[in-house]
């Protein structure tokens, strides 16, 4: 099961090390991990995508993370209605003849071209991981030279009361 954990943590120097340490020590596979500050500069949000075998495992992981002194709050985002986004930059080989074609291929993905040179272009896409996977598939035939993905970040939707 793929699960997304969102942890608010105190912005201390060792915090990322500590969090990833909990995951490796308890033998969880991290698919992606992303970190950035929140509205409060002393607080960071760490978003972790893991695959777990059971709800029990997930509960254990959340407890172990919550136990860390620097952890303010941990939630299993995948359990609730949430938004998740990832950003990817994809460098694709181009020739003068196929550039137009690529442009039209990426359009449905709402991706954009952010850099152009003689032999390649760099495409930027933001969205769910599946959407990025799909675009990567489409672009493979042209020859992907380099790919950089940020890993997922996300927020819970506001609940409607």
């Amino acid at each position, binding site marked *: 099961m793929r699960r997304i954990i969102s942890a608010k*943590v*105190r912005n201390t*120097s*060792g915090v990322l*090390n*500590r969090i990833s*340490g909990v995951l490796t*020590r308890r033998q969880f596979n991290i698919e992606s991990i992303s970190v950035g500050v929140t509205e409060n500069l002393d607080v960071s949000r760490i978003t972790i995508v893991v695959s777990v075998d059971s709800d*029990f495992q997930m*509960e*254990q992981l959340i*407890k*172990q993370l*919550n*136990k860390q*002194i*620097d*952890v*303010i709050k941990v939630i299993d985002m995948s359990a609730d209605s949430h938004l998740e986004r990832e950003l990817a930059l994809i460098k694709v080989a181009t020739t003068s003849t196929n550039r137009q074609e690529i442009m039209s291929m990426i359009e449905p993905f709402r991706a954009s071209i952010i850099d152009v040179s003689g032999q390649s272009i760099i495409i930027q896409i933001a969205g769910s991981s599946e959407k990025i996977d799909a675009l990567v598939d489409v672009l493979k035939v042209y020859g992907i030279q380099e790919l950089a993905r940020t890993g997922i970040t996300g927020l819970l939707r506001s609940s409607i009361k």
Partner: protein
Amino acid sequence: MNKKGTELFIDSLLDEDVEMIFGYPGGAVLPLYDSLYDKKIPHILTRHEQGAVHAAEGYAKASGKPGVVLVTSGPGATNVITGIADAMSDSVPLIVFTGQVASSGIGKDAFQEADILGLTIPITKYNYQVRKVEDLPKVIKEAFHIATTGRKGPVVIDLPKDITLDETPVKKIAEVHIPSYQPNYMPHPNQIKKVVTAINQASKPVFLIGAGIHHSDGTTEFRELLENSKIPVVSTLLGLGIVPTDNDLFLGMGGMHGSYAANQALMEADLLINIGSRFDDRLASCPESLAKDKTIIHVDIDPAEIGKIIPTDIPIVGDAKEVIRLLNKETFNTENYADWRDTVKNYQTEAPFTYEETVEEIKPQRAIELIGKITNGEAIVATDVGQHQMWAAQFYPFKHQNQLITSGGLGTMGYGIPAGVGAQLAKPDKQVVIIVGDGGFQMTNQELAILEQYHLAPKVILINNHSLGMVRQWQESFFNERRSESVFDNQPDFQKMAEAYHLKSVRLDNAETLEEELIQAFKEKEPMVIEINCSPTEHVLPMVPPGKPNNEMIGVVKR
């Protein structure tokens, strides 16, 4: 007014009522050692940093206060790793100051630099590196708070050398407030109600008690609860002493080398009330079978322990003492389980801990039994790890909180002598008995040097079975008697080792005169190494083989 880092260090420790520091000097901590020269806080110079950290553990367990350690950077710091891991495992509050190279050298592979922050993240409750001298007082205050509250544990403070020399204006520091760290002491009243209902519906309830009760200082309250509830009780290794061994409801230690009665009771119970233990695999070698067909109540101050090993029906997050206090306000239908009390009591009379007596050789079990008798069960007992440790647990009649000082979770050989020394320093007027094997003795005996220096008088009982007994036992039981590297063909002359440390010593070889000779030895006011030449073939029994349910013990001898 400006003060230097070293002065702030001393001020902060005095503020925390630190009675003594265990440590070992070196380059990175020269400024701190200079500040100790004035002896505002006594410093105990152990002979190895591992000794310092185990001594601090022994001190902490015997006194109930946090132990403080100071060592230098690099090798000084890596030498305390074992003790820190040990303290983490057994929730022992420690503050470990490690020197660090000057800030300008950090990350540049400077002389004696080790990444002690990185190394200790997984084995500390928390750790710090002080980056600015003005942070030092706050960091120390926080560290003491974290080490001694909630589930206790070790905290490391890494101190770069230049920080200890820098100056800063003295400021009053605010009370500690860490929003992300708010341990919960008070249990939820609804959960307490559920416990009462569960007990009153049970026909076969049993208490399982562990170190959490020592840590919360809840022994008196638990004994009261026992009076009120009349529920039979099983202890973990680290829970020994909470209930006096001769209490009618006490079934002994449970688990791998626990008693037949304790293990039967754990399996047959319909209600298991775990207070302050963590279902460690030495207790619950087969958690599925232990949990089967019963209601599980688990009280722990650490929410992450609840449900970790065994699914819990009534989880209670809170301080053991607070939970017990609330339960003491209730009344229980103790007659409901009167038959059960008889059943488990019969198990106990049927199969107590035992050994075969002989005059041919000294049985280690008998030696420990005699020491229990001679000290009237009043001594603080520090053990090392191995067979002698289990025999101490089985045959010493513990009766006080924090009376047994032993390495439970990590099982650290080399723990006994330094931990015993630390316990003796904490309680100079108490009789301390250090029980150690011939293997473990050779790991940390250098700390015997401290005894003369500080006029400490523990009795060091060296159970010499000429082997790494516990390893030999497993090889004899599970590896076709292939005693791979577990038998000593050559041993040092332990008598001469004692003499070298200016300690009195005796070697006891004769089973017939053992009791008399032990009585004589314990009459001595001085510290003493009492080497007991024991049977080299004994096994610790009975035993739950690894992975087996608690009621499948081998080596149970029924009367």
